[in-house]
């Protein structure tokens, strides 16, 4: 942590980004007018916003600060003759609408035939567009992913998408700060995904409402950028408005040389500016929580929201032990939906599907981890394993390393880039009653298909489960 040279009161990283983006500060009666440095757009939450612009005869103010991609309702079945088969007319109408909108308003689009297409939160960082100190928004709650670079990045609704398109600003109240301090060394088999699942279990599903989470501590510092993205990605699952990590050399190294990264003298100036982006010593947080990385085990969810998670060798809690009656009812309902008994272990529970993908865990390092487990092993009989890279760039990189062969030889499906079974809008989905171990971020009822049951875990746990045919602990996989 650094101390600014002048004698102004110590600020958090969020305070610094906030104050440098104020077109107008907030007052009692009006929220701040906050400037947006980068606006990411996808097909699902934008059509009604563009329609609003047309109704008012307003242009997009800064198409040069806007980028669109197709990810949610895009097919991930392998291309035939280079082309993708879209699920149905509704999905193709939605995709065509995005094309029309980007054309008409002059916005760059990574469409299905663009070699850079992919999940919106994978492509921003991959292209070097996500940079420290920026404000980044998207009509998508997992925009917090970009906070891994020390950006203030958060999800907005469609009305707000129209506000940003038209004015490049948003009306916002300043969020509160919450420090999440994770120190220590991760044991083997335990990953960034396990850290964030443990954090959410600790804070609770709505525990960070109104706050931005700043992740700090030696365990966070030792993570690579893709792992930091996994952490920040799931901030919303504790109710947080955003999550971020102060940038450091790991961050700068990751950005350097990417297509939209600054170069030459601009690069030097940018790095000098980025180095000032840390919370000042003595900066105050509204709340803080601590976690010891060394004490963590691989985590897995057992219930129907992401805070219902336990160590993989733990036991499903008894609803009767819940602190409040509301929690008891919630747990009871979750266990019934998941067909689980209080006190049981999850290890050995059979699954139908294993899904490796989503903006949480579909980057090259995630695929490498899963492939390392799959190498020389086979997906168990009766289990379907889908591996869905987060972008076409990730897909090519994986293929260059031969990861696709490892997955296919193991009997897994190697798919095209997209959200796929994370949200089950594109035809990739669970059948009613099926169970899946998934590396995605939400285990809400029906999230992966109506009546489907989701267990969230890391790529390592997902791969171990695919091999065993049942929920397995990667640390003891034979």
């Amino acid at each position, binding site marked *: 942590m650094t101390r600014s040279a002048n004698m102004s009161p110590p600020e958090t990283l969020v305070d610094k980004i906030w104050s440098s983006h104020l077109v*107008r500060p907030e007052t009692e009666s009006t929220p701040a007018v906050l400037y947006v440095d980068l606006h990411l757009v996808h097909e699902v939450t934008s*059509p009604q916003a563009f329609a609003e612009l047309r109704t008012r005869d307003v242009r997009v103010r800064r198409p040069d600060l806007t980028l669109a991609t197709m990810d949610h309702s895009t097919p991930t079945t392998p291309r035939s003759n280079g082309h993708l088969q879209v699920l149905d007319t509704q*999905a193709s109408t939605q995709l065509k609408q995005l094309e029309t909108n980007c054309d008409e308003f002059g916005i760059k689009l990574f469409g299905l035939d663009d070699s850079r297409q992919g999940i919106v939160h994978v492509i921003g960082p991959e292209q070097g567009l996500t940079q420290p100190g*920026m404000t980044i928004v998207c*009509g998508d709650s997992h925009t917090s992913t970009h906070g891994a670079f020390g950006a203030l990045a958060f999800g907005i609704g469609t009305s707000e998408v129209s506000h940003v398109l038209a*004015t490049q600003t948003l009306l916002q109240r300043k969020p509160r700060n919450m420090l999440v301090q994770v120190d220590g060394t991760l044991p083997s088999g335990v990953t960034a995904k396990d850290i964030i699942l443990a954090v959410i279990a600790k804070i609770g599903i709505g525990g960070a409402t109104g706050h931005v989470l700043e992740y700090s501590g030696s365990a966070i510092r030792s993570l690579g950028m893709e792992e930091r993205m996994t952490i920040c990605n799931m901030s919303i699952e504790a*109710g947080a408005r955003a999550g971020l990590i102060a940038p450091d050399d790991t961050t700068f190294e990751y950005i350097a040389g990417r297509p939209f990264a600054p170069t030459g003298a601009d690069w030097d100036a940018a790095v000098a500016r980025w180095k000032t982006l840390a919370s000042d010593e003595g900066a105050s947080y509204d709340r803080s929580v601590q976690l010891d990385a060394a004490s963590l085990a691989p985590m897995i969810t057992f219930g129907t929201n992401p805070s219902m998670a336990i160590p993989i060798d733990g036991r499903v809690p008894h609803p009767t032990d819940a602190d409040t009656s509301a929690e008891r009812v919630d747990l009871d309902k979750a266990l019934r939906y998941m067909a689980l008994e209080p006190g049981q272990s999850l290890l050995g529970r059979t699954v139908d599907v294993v899904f490796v993908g989503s903006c949480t865990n579909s980057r090259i390092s995630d695929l490498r981890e899963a492939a390392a487990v799959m190498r020389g092993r086979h997906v168990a009989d009766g289990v379907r394993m889908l591996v869905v890279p987060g972008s076409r760039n990730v897909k090519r990189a994986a293929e260059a390393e031969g990861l696709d062969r490892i997955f296919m030889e193991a009997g897994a499906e190697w798919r095209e880039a997209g959200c796929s079974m994370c949200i*089950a809008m594109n035809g990739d989905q669970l059948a009613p009653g099926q169970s899946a171990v998934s590396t995605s971020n*939400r285990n809400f009822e*029906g999230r992966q298909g109506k009546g489907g049951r989701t267990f969230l875990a890391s790529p390592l746990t997902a791969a171990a489960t695919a091999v065993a045919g049942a929920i397995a602990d990667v640390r003891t996989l034979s």
Partner: protein
Amino acid sequence: MKPFTSLTSSCVVLPAANVDTDQIIPARFLKTVERRGLGAHLFADWRVDEQGQPRSDFPLNSPSAVGAEILVAGHNFGCGSSREHAPWALLDFGFRAVISTGFADIFRNNALKTGLLPVALSAAAHGGLLDQLAASPRARVAIDLESQTATLPDGTSHGFKVDPFARHCLLNGVDELGFLLKEDAAIATYESAHPARVSTR
């Protein structure tokens, strides 16, 4: 946006906590490019069974739900995704207000921008309301945005808070985009002092 001043209505009670937007409107209905028509799919997987028949035990299907414009929900209503389709679906179904003890941030924001009033009551007042509605399911609740009070069937009034700006916009039908568009000069001043960080061109 239609102004919201006050509302007196019967209620539907859905007491579960942490109701997420995937339940309010499942993702498979998000392929629409329209705002309208989502009410038909509100709580689709809870409202309708595998055969497509209404589940008689789901509160929205109860005869006492007919005409109710207030949804009484559990804590942390609307958590999960940022889909504005959630308040659109609630409005399209006929709700104009949701009473809870707390809302997820993005849902609350989206609701206020679409004219659906999120009313956060104290746990005690909310508990009292649940008891009163259990005793008389058709009882009416009065919500007044100007005074920020909800009057329960037993006649007691309870305060709630809405962001002053959002309240002003709702009461007067002011649209936020119109407000922001008037900031054009201030935005231009900011832009000339702060060169763009990136260009997507």
